[in-house]
């Protein structure tokens, strides 16, 4: 747990403009009040079961495990939840909170579009206005998700400043929030931002790890040797890791996007190749230059293309509880194809980074050992990107 001001060691905190300090404090108080409220929890659990489709399966990827040789690999199937990714766990929670706070308008930022779709989905269901900020480059990369959001009734606002990706969308959403704090709830999609977002989003995503822990004990009869999850902002990874943090024998691996290679500077690996700094309301590891300017990042996966990371990951790295590694675009693509062909599951390019690391890890372990890989989302949204790389026009 962080301290009362939201610090994980030196990371986290609240680094925002004065105008947002009262609204964020109002949010913290509301969250503190409802997180232990039986009615709130009952409604959340009911929504997760009947709307999201939880629990998601823990699937033993037998053929893939056999081919790799070594540990048994289990996939936590977040791709099977409503809207196709883990993002919905969090937006359901935040939207229920927004409703109780009397807010009528949801805003969100999105990279790959999964968080935008999840926010637009819950807004439609609750009858709330919804505006989603998205970098214009990402709008191009993720056209199907943009259309999905519009079908759901959300306004998708293209952001043309800076690198035209997720970080700029986040800046723009913050600006909107400053201007409309009275009626607007900002649904942040990852475990970053000012306190209480990193804790709140983690708590909403921890359902992944709670389920996985029960499921692996039932299926393997033991705790797994390792957990593997991709890390952009880091919400699916924290969601899986958190309920296992006290199980010291379970190794935690967070997989960042090495893009074209860490040495090229064209990556999004803030923990593997960045430095601590302050951005988007928290202190954390950042991809920045020697003057403290935030650098443009690169990843084949729009959802990982972010120069920061959640502050709890920064702390897990410094304390050594979790290990962070990076996987290149090329390796992620290879894993994307491998899982699709061997198991009949098309993974998101984000999740493909975690899958690629599992391909390195599994052969070094024994067959009685288990690895849980978080399959954070499905790859339907990415087929245009993959096809384009292969010179196929759909």
């Amino acid at each position, binding site marked *: 747990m962080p301290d009362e001001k939201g610090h994980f060691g030196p990371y986290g905190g609240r680094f925002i403009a004065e*105008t947002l300090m009262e609204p964020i404090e109002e949010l913290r108080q509301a969250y503190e009040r409802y997180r232990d409220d039986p009615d709130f929890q009952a409604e959340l659990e009911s929504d997760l079961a009947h709307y999201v489709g939880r629990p998601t399966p823990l699937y033993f990827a037998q053929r893939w495990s056999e081919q790799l040789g070594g540990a048994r690999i289990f996939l936590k199937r977040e791709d099977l939840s409503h809207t196709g990714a883990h993002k919905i766990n969090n937006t359901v929670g935040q939207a229920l909170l927004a409703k109780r706070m009397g807010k009528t308008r949801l805003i969100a930022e999105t990279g790959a579009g999964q968080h935008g779709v999840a926010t637009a989905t819950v807004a439609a269901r609750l009858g709330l206005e919804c505006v989603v900020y998205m970098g214009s480059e990402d709008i191009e990369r993720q056209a199907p998700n943009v259309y999905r959001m519009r079908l759901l009734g959300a306004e998708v606002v293209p952001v043309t400043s800076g690198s035209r990706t997720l970080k700029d969308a986040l800046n723009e959403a913050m600006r909107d929030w*400053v201007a409309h704090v009275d009626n607007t709830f900002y649904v942040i999609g990852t475990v970053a931002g000012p306190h209480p977002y990193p804790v709140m989003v983690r708590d909403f995503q921890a359902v992944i790890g709670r389920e996985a822990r029960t499921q692996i004990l039932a299926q393997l009869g033991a705790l797994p040797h390792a957990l593997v999850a991709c890390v952009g902002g880091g919400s699916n990874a924290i969601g899986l890791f958190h309920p296992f943090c006290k199980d010291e024998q379970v190794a935690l691996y967070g997989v960042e996007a090495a893009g074209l290679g860490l040495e090229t500077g064209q990556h999004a690996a803030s923990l593997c190749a960045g430095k601590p700094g302050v951005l988007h309301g928290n202190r954390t590891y950042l991809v*920045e230059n020697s003057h403290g300017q935030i650098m443009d990042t690169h990843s084949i996966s729009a959802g990982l293309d972010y120069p920061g990371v959640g502050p709890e990951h920064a702390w897990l790295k410094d304390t050594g509880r979790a290990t962070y590694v990076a996987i290149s675009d090329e390796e992620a693509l290879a894993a994307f194809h491998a899982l699709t062909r061997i198991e009949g599951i098309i993974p998101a390019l984000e999740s493909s980074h975690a899958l690629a690391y599992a391909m390195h890890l599994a052969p070094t372990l024994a067959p009685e050992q288990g690895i849980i890989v978080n399959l954070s989302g499905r790859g339907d949204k990415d087929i245009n990107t993959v096809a384009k790389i292969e010179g196929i026009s759909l």
Partner: protein
Amino acid sequence: MSRITERFALLREQGRKALIPYITAGDPKPQVTVPLMHALVAAGADILELGVPFSDPMADGPVIQKACERALAEGTSLLDVLAMVAEFRRDDQETPVILMGYLNPIEILGYQNFAQQAAVHGVDGLLTVDMPPEEAAPLVVACEEQGLDRIFLLAPTSSPKRIEQICALGSGFIYYVSLKGVTGASTLDVDDVSLHVANIRRHTSMPVGVGFGIRDAPSAAQIASIADAVVVGSALVKRIEQYQDSPEAIPEEVSALLRTMREAIDAAKNI
């Protein structure tokens, strides 16, 4: 007494209100900034607010964001901004200069190193948009040690408890953000600003400056009738943008705009 406090004391004696122009250092080219600073002083600026360009200026509107992008494209770093202040000081020992920006470029230098260098180069005060009092202690201490004023923002949403806390922590003057929104937003409710400024004055004897939403001479004059200082940013930066392709014209064009605000403020006082 700091250069900022001295300046406000002098203005009070004269019965005048402070005019504080904001420009982004290095916009559109680094060599424009120092001549522009002198031109602004000649046109009636009492204190200069120099923006340190940052890649992600979250609390600023599109006008200042673009200014940051222009300055960064020219490679303007925080160290370059400090060098500009030193160059300005060679000819002007009187006019206070405040740096305004975001925390990350300062983090990279280290708080003590930054404060030391800022003082040596002739900076008088610091305003960091994304550092509320809850996180400010280490940087406040570093600035205090070097005699730099710590200017904090208050917003329409600030509670009485926060107003008290921020007034206790700040020095030089208090900067009231006149609206919920980013810099350069359009709506300015003068009655509402007046109420908030009066409320702030119950908590502090420091001068109160007002910024955000002041776009022309009439709005500058209105705010001057309420506050001790008027901060103008986006309106000037927009003028810089208009002349980005002929930078040699910028000092004259921008200071001409500032002069109309100066005249309106001084005329309003005599009504």
